[in-house]
């Protein structure tokens, strides 16, 4: 983003919108800077006002009331607070259901509960990465404390049938958490229509600053805190608020609400251009659902090529994309993506996955340039590969 290369990894993080930066600056060093929202003096009151205005913007983005929005340090904290907090608030219920394709934040929190004696059911997915409502219905038990299924997948971009899944849980009286970190600002989310209990969002995935996010908690749903202290955020998330970050998040949420339709159409156009170009190469396949997918996500398996080398090769050619499956830094070598494995892909395929995610400011020229570089990188790496025989 700063070295002049073309950035096509918006699922990892998005560049800060200039308008968001301008909204933040007064709170970083300008006239409004320095107040603690909890203080009684004027500076404190100013900070409080700014935080509450941002809360209203974030609430509007997902159709919530401001009192149902609790600021956090980001998506990971929101997911942890929801999973651990919902479980802790339901004594005696020792069963948790999560999908097999959740972000590591949810998977990790669920594994933590498992280590504390909870039963964890991990719902499988179909070849497109979707959870089946029937499978969820079968998994629910009398002692189920919560269900967590993400709104849209961070790797392969598949959108889950959240309305149906959340509705089912509502009928059974089981809290439902949705990780909407990738979906927020990209897909219309309206919690007044979709009966989720909690929903996690993150600022830096929608052109806001890093280090801030929010958890929506439906009124009446009990969530126990996991951080203790001064009782900020209604006692659910103690700690002095990240005022500038929250203001930026508010601005980013407002812009996302206003521009969502345009952004989605723009991204979809580029996504289809990307897909057509990439799939025209032999041995390249799309992962995830063809239509029920994020507007900006293209996730590919490239036969005969290992993801890390492809990503670094493209980086050297001036294009930043994500590897679908990070090569873990352990002496044991690689770790295949659990998402692709859950979708029934083999390990060799999981090692060959790359993720290209466009953004609202990506251009046609960038995508076309990328396709040229991609084709060149793939053919050179295949020439190197002892496993790929060009036919």
């Amino acid at each position, binding site marked *: 983003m700063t070295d002049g290369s073309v950035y096509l990894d918006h699922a990892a993080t998005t560049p800060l919108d200039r308008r968001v930066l301008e909204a933040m600056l007064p709170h970083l060093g300008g006239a409004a800077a320095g107040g603690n929202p909890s203080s009684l003096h004027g500076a404190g009151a100013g900070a409080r006002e700014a935080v509450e205005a941002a809360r209203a913007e974030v609430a509007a983005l997902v159709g919530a009331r401001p009192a149902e929005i609790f600021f956090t340090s980001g998506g990971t904290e929101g997911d942890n607070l929801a999973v651990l907090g919902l479980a802790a608030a339901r004594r005696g219920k020792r069963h948790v259901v999560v999908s097999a394709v959740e972000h590591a934040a949810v998977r990790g929190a669920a594994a933590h509960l498992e280590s504390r004696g909870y039963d964890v059911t991990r719902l499988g997915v179909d070849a497109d990465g979707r959870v089946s409502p029937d499978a969820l219905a079968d998994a629910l038990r009398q002692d189920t404390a919560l269900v967590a299924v993400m709104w849209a997948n961070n790797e392969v971009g598949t959108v889950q049938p959240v309305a149906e899944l959340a509705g089912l849980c509502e009928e059974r009286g089981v809290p439902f958490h949705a990780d909407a970190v990738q979906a927020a600002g990209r897909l219309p989310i309206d919690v007044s229509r979709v009966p989720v209990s909690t929903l996690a969002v993150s600022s830096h995935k929608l052109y806001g600053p890093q280090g801030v996010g929010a958890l929506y908690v439906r009124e009446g749903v009990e969530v126990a805190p996991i951080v203790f202290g001064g009782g900020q955020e209604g006692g659910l998330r103690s700690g002095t608020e990240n005022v500038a970050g929250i203001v930026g998040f508010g601005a980013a949420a407002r812009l996302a609400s206003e521009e969502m339709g345009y952004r989605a159409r723009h991204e979809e156009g580029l996504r289809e251009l990307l897909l057509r170009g990439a799939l025209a190469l032999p041995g390249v396949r799309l992962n995830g659902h063809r239509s029920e997918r994020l507007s900006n996500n293209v996730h590919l398996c490239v036969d005969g090529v290992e993801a890390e*080398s492809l990503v670094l090769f493209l980086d050297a050619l001036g294009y930043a994309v994500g590897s679908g499956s990070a090569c873990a830094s352990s*002496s044991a070598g*690689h770790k295949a993506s659990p998402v692709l494995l859950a979708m029934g892909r083999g390990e060799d395929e999981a090692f060959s996955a790359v993720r290209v995610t466009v953004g609202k400011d990506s251009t046609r020229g960038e995508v076309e340039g990328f396709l040229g570089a991609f084709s060149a990188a793939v053919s050179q790496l295949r020439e*190197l590969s002892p496993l790929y025989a060009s036919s």
Partner: protein
Amino acid sequence: MPDRYNPQVIDHLVRPRNVGELEGASGTGESGDASCGDVARFTVRIAENRVEGVRYKVYGCAACIAAGSALSELVSDASLLDAARVSGVDLEEALGGPLPAGKEHALTLVLDALHKAIEDHWNREAGEMLVEGYGGLRAGTGGKKTVVVATSGGVDSAVTALLMKEAGYEVACVTFRLHDGERGSRSCCSPDTVLFARDTAHRMGLPHFTLNLKELFDRRVMEDFVGSYAEGRTPNPCVSCNAHVKFHAASFLADKLGFERVATGHYARVVEEPEGATMARPVDEAKDQTYVLWPVPRELLARTIFPLGEHRKEEVRRIAEDRGLAVAYTPESQDICFIPDGDYRGFVRKSVAAEPGEIVDREGRALGRHKGVVDFTVGQRRGIGVAAPTPLYVTEVRPKTGQVVVGKKADLETREVRVGGLNWFLPPERAGSVQIRYNGRPVPCEMEHAEGGEVVAHLGAPVFGVAPGQSAVFYDGDKVVGGGVVRRDT
């Protein structure tokens, strides 16, 4: 350790050198596995011990691609000895410094692929020689101080290589692939052991080679091992290996490299007698391996050096520690190397159908039944499965009739032993004592020549539980006069 790649890595990634496969290659090697995410393949053309051409291919992360490229540059047009000396550290240097954490395996992977290609070259050069046995035996005691050291990854062979290097020899290490040992097992010669032996050699700055002797080992050692049990003999696989495999293969490599001598980490000495090179017991009596070394052909012994014969085991460990060799703390290998779990009966039963038979006493009276002669060896007391007032011992195994003969301990007493398959270093007349067990004591003996070039040793004291198939080794003081195999009847 950095968490990002050096620019040199990215340069090799984007502009890899020597990509492809050589036409008319003299060796091909592959390492890795698609399901692990990394595969490297090298092809080499070697002529007159120079790497004339090298090409590589890699499927894997940037580190693997770059390491393969850098390695191909380092060995291109190098002498084979220099190519075999290139270490992970050399590779890292060529790549601009340490790789990110967790990426070091890339160095091991591409080195292994190259070394397997060189191994393939040797095996093609050898043709049937490393299957049938290497016959080109020569003493190799010319003036050049050059030596091939057989290394296993253990402390003894590593110190052997070190001592030879410090004695001013040009050293090349070789590790043999003898069988498909289980990965990571603590016995010798498993795949991880090869990597470890290579790394140890490289840390000493020495070239390292591997030779694939699986067919030869299977034919000369494992088949004999299994067959012996089926025939009621007690085999010693280390003896068969020393007779036909290890020293021959090391000599083959020495001849190919134009090297004079061969060294191993055995505890024994080679001494000059008027008759020529002779084997003698080592300084460390507790580690004496002459009992399994007797079949080494005399021509090969003449070019062999056992530097550890002059040292005690504690000294060897101390040398390894002082020089910082990582092998210093490896455990002693005790088991039969191709049976890491020690269950040799189970191993034999996999290859030989065991037929039930009779347990009889010396008068032929049936005492019970057994599940197969392979479960019995002469001198055995446990697991006979027959109740008796005094302890019963196996005194004889008769595979032809399927009978196992049992008796009292006194029935095991032997006062004469017929020995065949002899290998002499000194005139047989010089034999003053004979040893019939690995950890046994030599007993005085008098030699009588028998027909077929065999001998009968009249023992000055009774020996218990002598089994056909065991080695009988003759000594004159601490010198090995010769050795042979105990025959069934005297």
